[in-house]
């Protein structure tokens, strides 16, 4: 990496005019050749040129004073039209393409001028500065100014909140300048919409939110999309703390499309490098993406990659380096350290397989630790333990002191996570073409020992103007991901946290277990603390390896030809390829549940290849007509081919331990494969009509023919229409309102993506097939699935409406963008359950209706905006509900979802409770309702994100809070902490008494004194005549704990899922242009970043952001880092 940087530094110095030395110099009608000689002498440089290029005797004038070489060459360049290129001490001379028209002398001239605002009112206090010289003035109360400059000087006229303007002074004729407020600029910002069509933001007619590439290149996350968390209203990203785990992404409650450079991509975001992203525009609504057909049913995340652009020199090199270190945890589960392993206060290890006393039991309900016993050598009670030496005479394990050896084995086991990303890019541009080449390496060292992830991306973009009418462009990125090992999150003995946090007693010091093989049985038998249930964590980390290797190519090429000024054609082909291999190496003696236990190890290999090719052609005609009308009409066609193949193979035991090859299988290798293909052909068109830049009307239509459905239902049409009205330009509004726009849209999208479960192949969902049954002793078999597929499946349909308003006040310093959307999902293909006695469990047919609706509010403000200090605030708020409108067959309740009620019902087991919410006990034991019951709703009530950016001169400080408020979560980790005996609140005198057989714990709640209750099949109370009194029946504490927490009664560990995170803090110092003058850099900034800095939540033991139920993920943690960004 270092050598590459040096190479670029050298290359760049060629392009840079050294500006260090100032010398007194002047010319008076000196011939050019003589002037060059004088410069050579004074600045110790050498010119090289071909004499035919220069007019050797051209007379040069320059007032005598102290000047740098650059200033002199600038002047020469201006008067001769020559271009100078310095290479070390050598300066080459070339003819410039465009020559200045007249000979200009360096006489001082005085210029008068006037500055007006857009309403032609004079502006006072406007700065007028001369470029590269320390001269300046301001306008008076009439907006007038006077300034004396040299001919050819450039003046800059600027005022806060307005676009600066530049003039080159050639004579002393007065100047009148109209400054446009930056508001105007805001509207002229172009955004990328469907099919990659660039559009002025003010002309858009639907909700969207944009994030600039610069906003995500400093505070890194391993996965690009995680950096968008909280930045876009209604884009929910559930950030996972586990290494290399995909975040869950939902836009308005649906799975959204990702488009890269106009082409619908198949990406999990691991292959996209933030340094290559120019901007991300989230098109939220269906109308915005109707042109993508089926794929656009839930909006789109539009990613535009960086293209070649350049500074004045035609080339720009950027280097960005980001390094982040773990700085503590957001949520680290703490466990008790008072009791050891065993059951009912008893434990004696013999073989970990039941030979001792409760040594196979797996609970941490053993004897109290650190109890003094004067009769033993250690002075503490001593017991045989997993690491006891064996007495050579008796063959029995020798008792060891029963003491706490570790306060937190989890903390001891984990190491500090580390992330580093280094990117270098070169971009260039001239009038014929542009290019950009970028190379990135990402490395993550995981918290879990022996886990890491490497990702290298090379991306290239280039454009070429072949003629004035014909332009071609292409982008391509190649990404390689490689992880030799990454951790598991599911609950079970293959999960590290299961073996450490939940079931390992504090008398075990995890560091004592680092030698994980039984001596003399290396590769054959692990050394662990319980051979019935648990793996040695080190053994898992270093021997059970989950490896992932992916090659991802994302590419597109397009060509545009302008037949006339108004008529053009665009053709584009994009291809994305993702070829990946995952292997799992399972060593001998691996412990797991049932058949996944692998006494003889295993080797699994899965190869997946994914291909998508999309080709579009689009003919566009633009026309202005009558007086105020503009129209753009496009028609085109598109074809998409998707292919997925998978090959799975796994051994059935390893003949030789430690050899991970399919050929080393004990029993026949098991192997399966999948091929999925789909083709969609389309015609599409859209029209944009605008009146006076005030009213915009968009209509679009697309028809798809999909291979995933059967004729004639495989052809379907998607119309959309949307309108935008800029009211602030149509009627006179109070001056406090600077902008007001209304928009509305409607779309009707169908989709062939029939998602009725992971076991149904979407591509062939309408085709009934037999599945493979169990292969018994080599005899194959077939199984008829329990779903009955309708022979007339229609595509799913979503009818969407969206209404919005955007308003800005006080010269755009305060703004609000409000959107309401309402989708009706109808004809959705569903699994409609039927009586199993009918022979099938479910019908697959077009059925239910669901209404999705919500609001999104984006609020922006600039409370402070002075020359030095700027403060920007942006607040996102959103709320989403999904309501069941109808079930197929007219059912009123299905899976506890009621017609008219929310669909995100959280199901589970619930306590019987009194009307005022107290738990009902029987015999001192809490009673549950013997049916799956509604516990609440999973999704949050609302979601918020708040970003603040404060800029003071060269310092920028920004921070972001975001959170999800409301919703319910089942905290399986806590339930398991109770079950294992590791929960801190199980340390109390009741536990000791329970060990001694004393039943003295009285649980909270009431007992029934008379009457009875009846619950229906859905757990709803039908009748209740019970009378209650406070529960006063003492029971064994551990019996009560087990009844409360280990029975899977979700109500016992039900929490509000609310959380708020201080997601990011970035402090950036940009080195000013003055300091940079002395360096080879054109721009440089350094930032200190903090990621996931604070977490506020009442949920214990887990981070509610990404997890629920029994996922045993890595503890979520905080990162701090440094980012260095240099431009040459």
């Amino acid at each position, binding site marked *: 990496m270092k050598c590459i940087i040096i190479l670029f530094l050298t290359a760049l110095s060629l392009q840079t005019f050294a500006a260090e030395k100032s010398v007194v110099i002047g010319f008076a009608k000196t011939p050019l050749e003589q002037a060059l000689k004088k410069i050579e002498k004074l600045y110790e440089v050498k010119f090289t040129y071909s004499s035919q290029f220069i007019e050797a005797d051209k007379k040069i004038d320059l007032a005598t004073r102290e000047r740098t070489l650059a200033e002199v060459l600038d002047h020469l360049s201006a008067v001769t039209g020559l271009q100078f290129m310095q290479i070390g001490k050598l300066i080459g001379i070339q003819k410039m393409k465009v020559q200045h028209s007249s000979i200009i002398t360096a006489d001082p001239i005085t210029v008068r001028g006037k500055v007006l605002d857009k309403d032609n009112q004079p502006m006072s206090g406007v700065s007028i500065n001369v470029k590269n010289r320390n001269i300046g003035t301001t306008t008076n109360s009439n907006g007038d100014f006077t300034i004396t400059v040299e001919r050819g000087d450039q003046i800059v006229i600027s005022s806060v909140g307005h676009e600066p303007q530049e003039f080159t002074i050639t004579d002393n004729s007065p100047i009148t300048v109209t400054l446009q407020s930056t508001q105007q600029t805001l509207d002229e910002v172009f955004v990328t919409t469907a099919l990659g069509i660039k559009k002025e933001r003010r002309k858009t007619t639907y909700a969207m939110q944009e994030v600039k590439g610069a906003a995500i290149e400093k505070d890194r996350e391993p996965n690009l999309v995680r950096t968008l968390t909280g930045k876009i209203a209604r884009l929910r990203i559930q950030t996972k703390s586990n290494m290399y785990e995909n975040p869950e992404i939902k836009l308005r409650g649906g799975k959204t499309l990702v488009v890269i450079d106009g082409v619908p991509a198949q990406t999990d975001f691991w292959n996209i490098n933030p340094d290559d992203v120019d901007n991300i525009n989230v098109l939220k609504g269906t109308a915005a993406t109707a042109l993508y057909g089926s794929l656009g049913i839930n909006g789109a995340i539009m990613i535009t990659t960086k293209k070649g652009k350049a500074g004045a020199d035609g080339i720009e090199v950027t280097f960005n380096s980001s390094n982040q270190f773990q700085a503590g945890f957001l949520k680290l589960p703490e466990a008790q350290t008072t009791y050891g392993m065993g*059951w*009912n206060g008893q434990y004696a290890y013999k073989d970990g*397989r039941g030979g001792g*006393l*409760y040594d*196979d039991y797996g609970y941490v309900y053993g004897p109290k630790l650190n109890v003094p016993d004067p009769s033993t050598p250690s002075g503490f009670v001593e017991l045989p333990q997993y690491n006891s030496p064996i007495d050579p005479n008796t063959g029995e394990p020798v008792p060891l002191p029963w003491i706490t050896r570790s306060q937190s084995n989890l903390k001891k086991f984990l190491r500090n996570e580390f992330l580093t990303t280094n990117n270098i890019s070169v971009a260039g541009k001239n009038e014929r073409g542009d290019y950009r080449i970028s190379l990135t390496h990402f490395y993550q060292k995981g918290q879990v020992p022996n886990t890491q992830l490497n990702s290298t991306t090379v991306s290239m973009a280039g454009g070429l103007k072949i*003629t004035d009418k*014909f332009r071609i462009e292409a982008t391509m990125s190649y990404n390689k991901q490689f992880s030799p090992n990454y951790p598991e999150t599911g609950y079970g003995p293959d999960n590290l946290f299961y073996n450490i946090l939940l079931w390992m007693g504090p008398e075990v010091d995890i560091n004592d277990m680092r030698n994980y093989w039984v001596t003399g049985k290396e590769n054959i038998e692990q050394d662990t603390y319980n051979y019935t249930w648990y793996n040695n964590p080190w053994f898992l980390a270093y021997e059970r390896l989950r490896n992932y290797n992916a090659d991802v190519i994302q590419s597109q090429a397009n*060509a545009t*030809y302008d037949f006339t000024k108004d008529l053009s054609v665009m053709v584009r082909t994009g291809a994305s390829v993702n070829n990946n291999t995952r292997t799992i190496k399972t060593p001998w003696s691996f*412990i797991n549940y*049932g*058949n996944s*236990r692998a006494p003889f190890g295993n080797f699994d290999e899965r190869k997946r290849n994914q291909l998508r090719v999309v*080709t579009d*052609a689009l003919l566009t005609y633009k026309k202005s007509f009558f007086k105020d009308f503009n129209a753009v009409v496009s028609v085109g066609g598109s*074809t998409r081919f998707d292919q997925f193949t998978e090959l799975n193979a796994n051994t*059935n035991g390893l003949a030789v331990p430690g050899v991970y090859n399919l050929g080393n299988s004990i029993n026949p290798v*098991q192997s399966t494969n*999948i091929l*999925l*293909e789909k*083709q969609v*052909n389309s015609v599409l068109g859209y029209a944009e009509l605008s009146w006076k830049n005030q009213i915009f009307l968009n209509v679009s239509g697309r028809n798809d023919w999909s*291979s995933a459905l*059967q004729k004639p239902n495989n052809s379907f049409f998607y119309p959309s229409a949307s309108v935008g009205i800029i009211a602030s330009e149509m009627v006179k509004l109070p001056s406090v309102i600077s902008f007001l726009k209304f928009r509305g849209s409607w779309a009707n999208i169908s989709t062939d993506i029939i998602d009725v479960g992971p076991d149904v*192949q979407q*591509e062939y969902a309408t*085709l009934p*097939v*037999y*599945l*493979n049954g*169990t292969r*018994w002793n080599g*005899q*194959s*078999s*077939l*199984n*008829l699935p329990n779903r*009955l597929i309708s022979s007339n499946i229609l595509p799913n349909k979503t009818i969407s409406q969206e209404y919005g308003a955007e308003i800005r006040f006080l010269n755009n310093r305060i703004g609000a963008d409000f959107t309401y959307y309402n989708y009706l999902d109808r004809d959705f293909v569903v699994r409609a359950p*039927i*009586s*199993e*006695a*009918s*022979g*099938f469990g479910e*019908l697959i047919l077009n059925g239910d209706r669901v209404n999705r609706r919500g609001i999104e509010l984006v609020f922006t403000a600039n409370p402070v905006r002075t020359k030095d200090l700027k403060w920007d605030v942006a607040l996102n708020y959103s709320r989403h509900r999904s309501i069941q409108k109808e079930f197929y067959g007219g*059912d009123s309740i299905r899976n506890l979802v009621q017609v008219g009620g929310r669909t995100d019902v959280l199901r589970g087991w619930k306590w019987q409770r009194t009307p005022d919410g107290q738990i009902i006990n029987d015999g001192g034991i809490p009673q549950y309702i*013997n049916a799956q019951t509604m516990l609440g709703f999973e999704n949050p009530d609302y979601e918020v994100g708040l970003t603040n950016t404060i800029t003071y001169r060269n310092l920028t400080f920004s921070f972001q809070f975001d959170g999800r408020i409301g919703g319910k979560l089942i905290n399986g980790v806590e339930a398991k902490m109770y079950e294992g005996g590791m929960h801190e609140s199980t340390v109390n005198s009741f536990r000791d008494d329970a060990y001694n057989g004393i039943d003295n714990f009285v649980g909270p709640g009431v007992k029934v004194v008379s009457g009875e209750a009846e619950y*229906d*099949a*859905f757990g709803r109370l039908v009748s209740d005549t019970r009378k209650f009194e406070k529960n006063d029946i003492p029971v064994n504490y*551990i*019996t009560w704990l*087990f009844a409360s927490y*280990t*029975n899977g009664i979700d109500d016992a560990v039900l929490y509000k899922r609310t959380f708020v995170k201080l997601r990011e803090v970035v402090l950036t110092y940009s080195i000013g242009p003055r300091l940079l003058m002395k360096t080879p850099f054109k721009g440089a900034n350094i930032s200190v970043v903090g990621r996931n800095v604070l977490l506020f939540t009442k949920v214990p033991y887990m981070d509610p952001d990404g997890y629920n139920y029994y996922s045993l993920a890595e503890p979520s943690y905080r990162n701090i880092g440094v980012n260095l960004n240099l431009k040459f």
Partner: protein
Amino acid sequence: MKLGIYKLFVLTVAISLFSACKKHEYYQRNPNNPSVATPSLLLSNILVQTFTQVYPLDPSLAARHMTYFERPNVFVNYNWSTGSFSSYDILRQVRDMEKNAEDAPLVNYRALAKLMRAWHFIQLTETFGDIPYSQALQALDGNTEPSYDEQESIYAGVLNELEEANTMLDPSLAPILGDIIYNGDVMKWKKMVNTFRLRVLIHLSRREGSTSINVREQFQSILADPGKYPLMESIEDNAQLVYNTSAVDNYYPLYQNNSIPSLAALEKGFVTILKDRQDPRLFEIAEPVTNMPEGVFSSYDGVDAGGTIAEQNDASPSASKIKNRYFDDPVNEPMILIGYAEQEFLIAEAIARGWVTGDAATHYNNGITASMQFYGISQGDIDAYLAQPNVAYNAGNAIELIILQKYISFFMNSGWEPFFEQRRTGIPVLSTGPGTDNGGLVPQRWQYPQSEYSYNEANVSTAVQRQFGGSDNINGVMWVLE
């Protein structure tokens, strides 16, 4: 030239655009799975599913062969709620096989379809009571809300189907392909059909008088004509699944189970029955208590499943666990669905009840011998066992002896039959106590699945009203037990 490039580009794109297109019909075939099946491929699957349907630990807990002492367990504490309609899943395959085999040369598959129907409808009705039978499996014909048949008519229908199956099974035809149980031996299937029919008839012992069924006469007619109704002759004829190591799902179901060795023990009542009779099968199915010598009756003990969790836990260190081979040998022993031993006990019971004439003691001894042979116990040990006073056949308490021996022989096989037979006869008495929920009662049935209340509400409610006065509860007594 410039226009030439443009033309070339458009041409290239056009070619790639069209060459990528395959005909729509190409995609109307799922390349991953077949859309047609043969009866033999369906049969293999039906047999695997039928023979592996019951996880053997569940009935062994409910029937008090074993107990699970780690935590509350519905089969130990008798507080289960709903049962499963999963038999209908298998019946769907059966119906499809029958349809695929409608041509005459495949009559044996059609006969096996009848046997499988009979088998699963009996499982269902013994679990719940009334169930959909005559209107079941009609989703393809548009009936997704089948009505429930009364138990008596289900029994009558099943017995008819078994009669038909016996008539249809034709040993002169080619061996049945896909038969993973008897390797295509039609005669063995015929024997199983008739043995199973005896079981169904014995289940009706409290309903001897049913005029629609004529229990006695049917039993008599089967025993009277061995040529027409062949029966099993030895354990070689057992309908059983032999496990193997060719794939993980071909292993014995308890293989590598972590809980069985550490959290489950033999039940005290069962161990006592075996110890009282000096039963050598105890050494084949149980490990001695930790650190005690093997093969000595005093080394074995059990945990009382009626105790509280705490009591059971306390007792567990001095109790026998199940023999290690059940969880560390992937092949272990075959899973008997119905076998020769049971058949002999069924005949013995019929004789004892006076339904048929014959030598009950011989059939009784055959049953015990067959069960012991299954475990490889020597003839000498068997003879010694048969001679014991509390084992030897005694007409005075014949039913008790027969049922108790059948109960022992059902250890870890024959699905829910040990529980169903205890329920019918009350033998042996199952332990209940402070750990037992359900008001201290042993449940008599299962509640209908929650899904029936969602998708077939009217029919299930009618059935519940008809049988149990509107209360779908686990203590309701079904027709066959009244």
